């Protein structure tokens, strides 16, 4: 009923779609730009290091990722094979069939992270940080695997079962309950609340406005600029579809996207590899640029360190390691061994950053070598799209659809993360209010330009890394203990493969 009324509203808006309405975008932009600048300045407080500006929060994340990688003895390498065995179901008890499988948890978490960041974010990184940023992105992806391992294990270990039988988990729960177990009750409560507020606001930014914004930009590019000034209209339509899924409970739309998105991801990678192969002659030069740029970066503000900062920033933005969102997604798995979810989650930054982002970077990189300045002023998704278009003229249309679907599935995933933050704060009974706010921001995302919007969403997401990584430090010994006990039991044969 509500849905139908909303459709009627759309019709009215569409009828009113006259040039006079184009002014809305500019008005909203002029309001949000100064806010973005302020938020960005606070979160990305920078210290000058050897001529580059190093945001402390990026340093915070990198130090955390390096620490967990070393502390857990390179679990990202040593646990990789085991992660694949778990996803394949080698260790799944047939009596538990029908519960959430490791594969399903991984697929859901990946479809939340594989999004426009993989298509557009990489282009942003390369534009701002030069080809060398790609190298640091891959390294950040590798380091991020260990961070995810810790946060996802804790997410499952401290998740909570609701009275209705559903489960809620994530950083706010492991902060509150995990730290309480160490006698840090007050600190845990404070951090849990802080995180819940942060993930709620972050869900409106990175998981919402940025997605709808990039979807609109891509649609507009494909339409040859015919949608200029109609951001609000695209926004309202997108908001309507999201509304129908998260409030209207139209499961079929969600089901369709959840099935098409993995297919799209595979298609995207396949075509990207085809384009790279079509540019085969330029691959050595492109890879050379990536390595050369990583250490010498000419023409990039701050040189190599500048490239490193941009690369790390984009990597986190894409694979979300250290943000804690995946921890919320993985909490749904019912397992006696929380550590198994940690192993499975290792694969997320691997798929997202090391595989998909690298492929995109190579598409752009080889094209840059073949035709410098091919994209003109275009950045973000538009730049990636131009690189594909040079080889496959019709691909921008496919990319537009893929981008739209990626954006949509990321929004649906993040609506859930934000919801968990919200219900942690206000209880399970107030879900509808949250969902309405979420839909409003979908529409808003299409009305502001990439600059301020990217700054706001970046800033908010990096902000919640602060309490999350801090809690991970506190709880890392717990994870290490669990890991040791688990590995010992595998060695002794107490935990073994089924059907082998």
């Amino acid at each position, binding site marked *: 009923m509500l849905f139908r009324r909303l459709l009627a509203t759309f019709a009215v808006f569409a009828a009113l779609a006259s040039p006079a309405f184009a002014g809305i975008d500019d008005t909203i932009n002029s309001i949000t730009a100064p806010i973005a600048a302020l938020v960005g300045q606070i979160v990305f407080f920078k210290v000058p290091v050897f001529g580059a500006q190093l945001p402390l929060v990026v340093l915070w994340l990198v130090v955390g990722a390096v620490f967990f990688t070393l502390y857990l003895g390179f679990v990202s390498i040593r646990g990789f094979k085991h992660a694949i065995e778990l996803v394949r*179901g080698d260790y*799944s008890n*047939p009596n538990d*069939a*029908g*519960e*959430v*499988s*490791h*594969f*399903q*948890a991984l*697929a*859901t978490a990946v*479809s*939340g992270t594989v999004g426009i960041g993989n298509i557009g974010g990489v282009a942003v990184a390369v534009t701002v940080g030069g080809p060398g940023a790609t190298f640091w992105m891959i390294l950040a992806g590798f380091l991020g695997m260990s961070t995810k391992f810790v946060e996802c294990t804790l997410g499952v270990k401290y998740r909570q079962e609701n009275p*209705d*039988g*559903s*489960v*809620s988990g994530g950083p706010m729960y492991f902060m509150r309950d995990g730290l309480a177990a160490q006698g840090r009750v007050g600190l845990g409560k404070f951090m849990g609340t802080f995180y819940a507020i942060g993930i709620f606001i972050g869900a409106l930014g990175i998981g919402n406005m940025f997605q709808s914004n990039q979807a609109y930009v891509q649609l507009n590019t494909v339409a040859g600029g015919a949608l200029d000034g109609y951001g609000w209209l695209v926004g309202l339509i997108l908001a309507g579809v999201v509304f129908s899924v998260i409030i209207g409970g139209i499961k079929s739309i*969600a089901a369709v996207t*959840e*099935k098409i*998105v*993995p297919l799209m991801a595979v298609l995207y990678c396949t075509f990207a590899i085809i384009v790279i192969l079509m540019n085969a002659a330029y691959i050595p030069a492109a890879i050379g640029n990536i390595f050369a740029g990583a250490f010498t970066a000419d023409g990039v503000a701050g040189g190599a360190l500048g490239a490193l900062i941009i690369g790390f920033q984009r990597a986190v933005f894409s694979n979300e390691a250290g943000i804690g969102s995946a921890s*919320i*997604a993985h*909490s*749904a*798995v*019912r397992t006696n061994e929380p550590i198994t979810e940690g192993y499975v989650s290792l694969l997320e930054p691997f798929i997202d950053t090391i595989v998909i982002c690298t492929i995109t970077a190579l598409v752009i990189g080889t094209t840059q070598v073949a035709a410098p300045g091919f994209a003109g002023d275009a950045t973000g998704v538009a730049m990636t799209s131009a690189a594909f278009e040079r080889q496959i003229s019709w691909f921008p249309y496919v990319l537009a659809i893929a981008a739209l679907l990626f954006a949509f599935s990321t929004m*649906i*995933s993040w609506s*859930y*993360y934000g919801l968990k933050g919200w219900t942690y704060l206000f209880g399970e009974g107030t879900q509808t209010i949250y969902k309405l706010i979420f839909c409003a921001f979908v529409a808003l995302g299409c009305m502001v330009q990439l600059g301020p919007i990217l700054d706001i969403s970046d800033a908010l997401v990096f902000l919640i890394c602060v309490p999350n990584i801090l809690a991970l430090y506190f709880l890392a010994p717990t994870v290490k203990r669990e890991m040791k006990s688990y590995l010992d039991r595998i060695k002794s044969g107490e935990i073994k493969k089924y*059907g082998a």
Partner: protein
Amino acid sequence: MQNKYLVAVEGSEGSRRAVAHAIERAKASHAELLLVHVIDWSPYSFHTADELSARHKRREEELTRARDVVLAPITKMVEEAGVQSTAEVRHGKGAETLAALAKEQDVAQIIAGRSGESGVSTMLFGSTSSKLVQISSVPVLIVP
């Protein structure tokens, strides 16, 4: 090998005929029956986070429903005929799950109805019963 037959149970008419036949054979050879209902499920499907968080609850509901609605009347029918039986519900792919359970429980044979599936998917992938014939490690009896 145990003197036990595994019977595939669905809500369909064909499945009832298979059960009736199984009862006759069990009586003749003093065997007991293992009544199995498989709920179609794959560990490789895709869901939203929301669906995953409610999955455990959904699974319990599915199991309860299968026991009460599908298996209970059949168990009663078998009991009234004076044949010993146990019942089991599993999630999984029909043929694979039945074959695996037959092996696990060391039954003498599997008895199944000719499933009521039709249409394109059967043409492409075959029916559960024909698949069962191909992969089972114990004899399979298909009741038309």
